[in-house]
């Protein structure tokens, strides 16, 4: 008789313990962030889609159109074309597009780039209604950035 | 099963080829049984064996008796040699030995007996190998595609597969 009763009591007590735990949580403030009104800081190394880095001196892209990134990309989503302009020491890109719909954000392209001309952007709220919005022209993006932000140090 | 791998390999070869076939590690013939120790640090297994396709059930039974578990089994399509290799991976849950058994079947007639009687876990692995490679495991109770659609009649991991 003693054991079943004790079992019953232990079981019941375990329920009360559980209720105590949830009640303590009840009086603590919420841990969530109300997303569209507040956002968490994006970490330094956040891997968004890639973008071109500007040369701090010339304001042009650092890319030499070597196509290392194109070759390294597992999904084949980068297209780079480049020419050697008159008077330049190295090639510069004429086409640099990313098919972001196929990108897996692995970072291989950034890793292989010999001139560190690529970096991850910090765009995270990537939602759209059409596919075309994610065929990114990085050269255009670079120009737009140059137009809006005079100093390259400011973030994207 | 605490003996070192060389003993296990020898015992295995002796059990499967009682007439004393040579346990030579050099390029084994398709119908001979051989077993040899390999370097774990390079290969990830302690010893390997080669058996003819007809003897995979006997091999599996030997491993089952020793308390091994079937890790996985998979095919490799050696299209240049016109052969399909089937690799059975075993691990021992208590003594931690790892062993692999290989067998080769002709590519145009990829048929070998099922080991799902010995290791029920092989059932799914064989279904997978069947759908991916077109290997036919005779005696398998339910040899239908597992991961591919049920009406799939193609074998994507064959080297000549073109979608």
């Amino acid at each position: 008789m003693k054991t079943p009763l004790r079992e019953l009591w232990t079981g019941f007590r375990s329920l009360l313990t559980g209720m105590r735990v949830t009640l303590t949580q009840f009086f603590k403030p919420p841990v969530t962030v109300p997303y569209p009104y507040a956002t968490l800081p994006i970490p330094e190394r956040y891997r968004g889609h890639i973008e071109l880095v500007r040369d701090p001196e010339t304001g042009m892209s650092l890319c030499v159109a070597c196509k290392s990134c194109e070759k390294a990309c597992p999904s084949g989503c980068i297209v780079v074309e480049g020419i050697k302009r008159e008077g330049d020491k190295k090639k510069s890109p004429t086409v640099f597009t990313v098919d972001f719909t196929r990108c897996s954000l692995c970072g291989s392209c950034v890793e292989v780039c010999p001139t560190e001309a690529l970096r991850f952007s910090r765009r995270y709220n990537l939602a759209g209604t059409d596919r075309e919005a994610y065929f990114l022209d990085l050269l255009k993006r670079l120009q737009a950035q140059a137009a809006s932000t005079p100093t390259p140090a400011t973030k994207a | 099963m605490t003996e070192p791998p060389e003993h296990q390999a020898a015992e295995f070869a002796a059990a499967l080829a009682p007439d004393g076939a040579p346990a030579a590690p050099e390029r084994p013939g398709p119908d001979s049984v051989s077993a040899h120790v390999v370097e774990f640090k390079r290969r990830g297994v302690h010893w390997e064996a080669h058996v003819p396709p007809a003897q995979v059930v006997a091999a599996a039974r030997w491993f089952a008796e020793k308390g091994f578990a079937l890790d996985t089994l998979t095919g490799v399509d050696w299209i240049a040699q016109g052969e399909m290799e089937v690799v059975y991976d075993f691990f021992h849950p208590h003594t931690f030995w790892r062993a692999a058994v290989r067998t080769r079947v002709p590519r145009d007639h990829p048929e070998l007996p099922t080991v799902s009687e010995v290791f029920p876990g092989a059932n799914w692995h064989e279904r997978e190998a069947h759908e991916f490679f077109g290997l036919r495991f005779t005696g398998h109770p339910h040899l239908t595609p597992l991961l591919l659609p049920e009406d799939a009649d193609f074998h994507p991991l064959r080297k000549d597969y073109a979608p």
Partner: protein
Amino acid sequence: MSTSAALADAARAAARAEGRETFVLNLGPQHPATHGVLRLKLTMDGEYIARAEPVCGYIHRMHEKMGENRTWAQFLPNTSRIDYLSAMHYTHAYVAAVERAAQLEVPRRAEFVRVITSELNRISSHLVWFGAFLLDLGGFTPLLYAFDDREKILDLLERITGARLTYCYYRFGGLYNDVDAEFLRGARDFVRYLRPRLDMYRELVTENIIFRKRLEGIGVADAELCRRYGATGPVLRGAGVAYDVRRAEPYAVYPELDFKIPTHPRGDSLARYLVRMEEMEQSLRIIEQALDLIPEGPFRSKVPKVLKLPPGDTCFAVEAARGRFMVRIVSDGRDIPYRVKLRTPSFSNLSLFEEASRGMLLADALAFLGSLDLVIPDIDR
């Protein structure tokens, strides 16, 4: 008629012979308890299961074929997407297999970081399982608590890898980039933070009488059953077998660290639950020790730009959150894999479900299914 239908018919006929009538209940592929797109074709006798046939493949992506179409390095992003909850382990196995085949050196610092991140990943994976399992059992709140804790791990890992789920952080011969002091401090803080939380889970869940009554003796998968089906990980350890790849085939710097392999002999759902909960504590211990021992130094060794592996087979297994994950790579000497075989733990762990669930009640079977901790892409690959 297919064999499957024949088997289902046989189960039905057997039931009818005993004067019972069966019906087929289609559970999934969209059902709250299957966590993704697993489908169970249940032949039911009332609320009892006469036969449960898992139907997989709904999210099959043929990673193994993808591996044959790209260079060794290009396969890396795929590895995080097989089991999205323990991406670190999967990348680890693949990277280490290639390192083993090419005989590449890995700097000690990188090995320690691999251990720390892997164990953090294991905890986060177990936390998701813990929450989802309780959800299966009808308890909603622990899920949110577990996700709160997991969020802290994801923040830490995002800090160093830049991603929250598909990290793709390890590289041949080391890491993608080095960890900073902030991360190491954060990891230490996290260890300190999680311990009282685990105590809270014990009070809220583990000791709860309703919870224990639901799991005790339910879904027994004993050591012999696990061996026949090749089940590993917490399923095997919940059957009392101290098999852990970190011990069985030591890799990285695990041999230098002191940790226990938790086992429970009963093989029921509760045993598997307890194993995982204790594993989280052990992972915390491992992280603590690794944080003490981590040396300064390079995080990556020199690796040839175009990596070609010598011909032959190489295996590498790691203890992923769900069990033994093994990569078998076959090289023919080129820079492209000849064959990549992924041996995933959930695949084997699920295959025993059909045999073990026979004669169980539906609700029990779902508790059992939850305790196996399945990740469907891990089965389907």
